[in-house]
C-alpha cells in the first residue's frame, strides 16, 4: 500500500466512525430535534471524510468532481430535510426534551 492508500484508508475509517456515532446518537438521543442533530452532523462529516478518502483513489478529474458534487448535493438535501422535519415537529407542538422534564410534552400546552 502506498502513502496515498494509507491516507485514503484513514479518511474512510474516520468517515465510518462518524456514521457509527450518528447511528448511536439516533438510537440513544431522547427527542426528534437531538436525533436530527446527530444524524445530520454525522452524515455530513462522515460522508465528507469518505468522499475525501475516495478522492485519493479517483482516476480522473471528472470522477473527482462527481464525488464532490455528490457530497454537496447530500449536504444540501440533508440540511433541507433536517430543517423541514424539525419545523414540522415544532408545528405539531412537540417540545424539545429537557433533562428536568423527561417524557413527551407539547410546547403549546406548557
Amino acid at each position, binding site marked *: 500500500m502506498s502513502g496515498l492508500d494509507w491516507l485514503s484508508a484513514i479518511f474512510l475509517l474516520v468517515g465510518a466512525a462518524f456514521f457509527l456515532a450518528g*447511528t448511536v446518537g*439516533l*438510537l440513544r438521543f431522547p427527542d426528534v430535534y437531538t436525533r436530527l442533530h446527530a444524524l445530520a452532523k454525522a452524515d455530513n462529516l462522515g460522508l465528507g471524510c469518505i468522499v475525501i478518502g475516495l478522492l485519493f483513489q479517483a482516476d480522473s478529474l471528472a470522477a473527482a468532481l462527481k464525488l464532490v458534487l455528490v457530497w454537496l*448535493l447530500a449536504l*444540501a*438535501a440533508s*440540511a*433541507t*430535510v433536517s*430543517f*423541514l*422535519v424539525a*419545523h*414540522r415537529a415544532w*408545528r*405539531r407542538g412537540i417540545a424539545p426534551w429537557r433533562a428536568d422534564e423527561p*417524557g*413527551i410534552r407539547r410546547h403549546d400546552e406548557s
Partner: protein
Amino acid sequence: MNLAFDLLLIAALLWSAGRALTTPDLFRAVVLFIVFGLLMALAWARLDAPDIALAEAAIGAGLTGALLLDALGHLRGPVRRKSGLIAPSTVMSSEGAGPPAFPTYFLNGLAIVLAVALGLALAGALLLLPEPAISLPREVAAAMDASGVAHPVTAVLLNFRGYDTLLEVAVLWLALLGVLAVAGGRAPGRAPVTPRSARASLKVPRLLARVLAPLALLVAGYLLWAGAHQPGGAFQAGAVLAAAAVLLNLAGLLPGGATPRWVLRAGLGFGLLVFLAVAAAVMGQGVLLQYPPAWAGALIMLIETGLTLSIGLTLAGLFLALSGASRQ
C-alpha cells in the same frame, strides 16, 4: 477475506433483524429495521444484484422506513385511558401488557420451537440440495438479442416475465386504493396554513427544495434511461420521484390529502393503463405482451416511462395519504 466479510454481514443482518423484533422500544425497533434494510442492500450488492440493491435501499429501507417512522407517532402515542391519565408503562413502549398468562406462555414456547425447527429443517434442506436440472441464465442469455434491451434484469422484468410486472403494478395501485379507502373516510386533508413568521423561516429550505426537486427529476430520468442497459429502471426512478414529492410536501409546497382529484387519479392510473393498452394493442398480431421485435425496445421504454410517473405518484401517494389523513 470475502468469506469473513460475508459472515460479518450475515451476523449483522441477523442481529439487526432479531433486535428489531425484540427490543422493547418501538422507535429503536424501526431504526434497527432501517439499518437492517441498508444491510440487505449490501447483501444484494454482494450477490451481484445491483438492481435489487438500489431498489432495497430506495424502497425497502428508505420509503418503508419513512412510512414506519411516520406511523410511529400515531401508533406509539400513549393510549388514552378511561380516567384520562396516561398509563406510565405506555409512554415508553406502548406494548406494555401485563405478564402473559399460562396458555400464552405455552403457545409462545410452541411457536418458538416451531420456528427453530423450521429454520433447522430449511438449513438442512438447503445444504442437501443437488444442482438444478434447468439453467435459466443460459436461456436468458440466448434470448437477449430479441428482447429489445441490453440489461438482462430489465429484459426479464419487462419482456420475458413482463406479465408478472403488469400484475405487480396492479398490486401497487391496489395498495394505494386500499390506503385511500381506509384513510379517506373523512374530509380531505388541507394544506397546513403557515403563519407569516414561520413562512419567513421557511424561505431558504423552500428555495433549496425548489432546486432539489428538478434535480431529482433529472436523476429519475437518468435511472429510467439507464435501465435499458445497466441497473436501474422504472421502480428505482419512481422511488426517486416519490422522494422529491415527499420533500416538497414537507416544505409545504405540495398539499397532502386523502381524496385525490381527477387529474391526480388519472396520473395514478396512467402507468397501468399504458401497460394494459400496449398489452392489448400487440395482441392484434400475436399474443398478450408479445412485442414485435423491431418495436420491443421502444415499447418497453414507453411502458417504463408511464410506470415511472405512476409509481412515483403512487409511492408518494402512499406516504402523503397516510401522513395527510391523520393531520386534520
